């Protein structure tokens, strides 16, 4: 690949998904895009770049952008954030929202669904404490392909053994041949939507909890700052932001502050005016009312 082609693709990816590639990631581009080109009957990176530059390449743009995303995820990834969710976040929310008995949670890069389903299972495990509560989990991702998989909730034997305790597999999944599908009751708790974090997301409304894990690491500093600032507008004044193990707001923005001794947890800083945010546009919100046991 020529330096000009590489620079074109770098800029293309930064513009479309925020992916910030350093100057030496040619191998990554080739390993992800050559198979894609071959399938599309395109001879190589050179021709691919020409096609991207040409008009009417919408489907190709999407497949190039999606091919360059890293979708790796596990159930209860890193465990600690989910312990915090159970032991710190939800107890506070349950107290603070005792009046309206509803909670809105956003998984801002939900990938193939392991993260939102882990949250759904955690909520189920809370049992009586949430009986009668309206629970809304919105899982978004840039990639349509991972969203389809998340919606189906079907996982391989390998995937259900990464991070998922065996008791939870038994309790919340149904085996069909070599695969395992998460129960309809949990699937019904989650609304899946395509969303690019580079674009406006104000229409999603305001959340009590935002999980935004292992996606900002791929972005450059300005993009991170921009996203943090916009996330701050979608979070309740007493809400929680949860980041990945390698991510932080420190040194980037003061819209959030880390919670001491709760690694990965952040609180919004200013008590922003509770300006009424529009509710979900488009599809009717999927709200699960938690049943008792």
């Amino acid at each position: 690949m020529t330096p000009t082609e590489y620079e074109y693709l770098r800029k293309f990816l930064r513009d479309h998904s925020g992916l910030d590639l350093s100057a030496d990631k040619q191998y990554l581009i080739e390993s992800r895009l050559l198979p894609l080109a071959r399938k599309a009957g395109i001879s190589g990176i050179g021709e691919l770049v020409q096609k991207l530059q040409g008009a009417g390449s919408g489907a190709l743009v999407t497949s190039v952008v999606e091919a360059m995303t890293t979708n790796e995820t596990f159930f209860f990834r890193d465990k600690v954030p989910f312990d915090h969710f159970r032991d710190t976040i939800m107890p506070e929310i349950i107290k603070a929202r005792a009046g309206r008995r509803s909670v809105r949670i956003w998984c801002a890069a939900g990938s193939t669904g392991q993260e939102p389903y882990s949250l759904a299972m955690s909520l189920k495990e809370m049992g009586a404490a949430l009986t009668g509560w309206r629970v809304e989990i919105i899982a978004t991702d840039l990639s349509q392909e991972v969203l389809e998989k998340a919606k189906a909730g079907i996982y391989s034997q390998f995937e259900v053994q990464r991070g998922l305790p065996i008791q939870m597999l038994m309790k919340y999944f149904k085996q069909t041949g070599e695969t395992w599908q998460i129960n309809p009751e949990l699937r019904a708790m989650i609304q899946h939507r395509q969303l690019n974090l580079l674009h406006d997301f104000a229409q999603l409304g305001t959340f009590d909890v935002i999980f935004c894990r292992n996606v900002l690491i791929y972005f450059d500093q300005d993009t991170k700052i921009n996203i943090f600032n916009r996330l701050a507008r979608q979070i309740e004044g007493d809400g929680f932001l949860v980041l990945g193990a390698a991510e932080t707001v420190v040194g980037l923005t003061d819209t959030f502050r880390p919670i001491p001794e709760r690694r990965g947890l952040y609180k919004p800083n200013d008590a922003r005016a509770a300006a009424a945010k529009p509710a979900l546009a488009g599809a009717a919100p999927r709200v699960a009312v938690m049943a008792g046991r």
Partner: protein
Amino acid sequence: MKTCLVVDDSSVVRKIARRILEGLEFEVTEAEDGSKALEVCQHKLPDAVLLDWNMPVMDGFEFMGHMRRLPGGDQPKVVFCTTENNVAHIAQALSGGANEYIMKPFDKDIIADKFAEVGLIPVGQAMV
């Protein structure tokens, strides 16, 4: 150093498991069937047992029953590791006293995740 007893009638599987577990800083002993494993446990109980199901002489499920009745036999964490991958077997293992369950084939990540799950290794270690 924590100890792990690997019980499997396949020497290849035992070797792979040993390599993974030594990487997770376990001292590993091996047994090729349930009755040999029981002898090891009567001598000294390990911290963990990685346990195949189908083996000649005594199978893994029967072994677990005997081991759990030894003095202190409720202590070791038992992680099944078997090609039996259906709900009935998993339920039977759990009600018989297993702590975790791995469906073969397995790899280092799965063993590390499952061992972290039952507290045999710190969570962070599963990530390396």
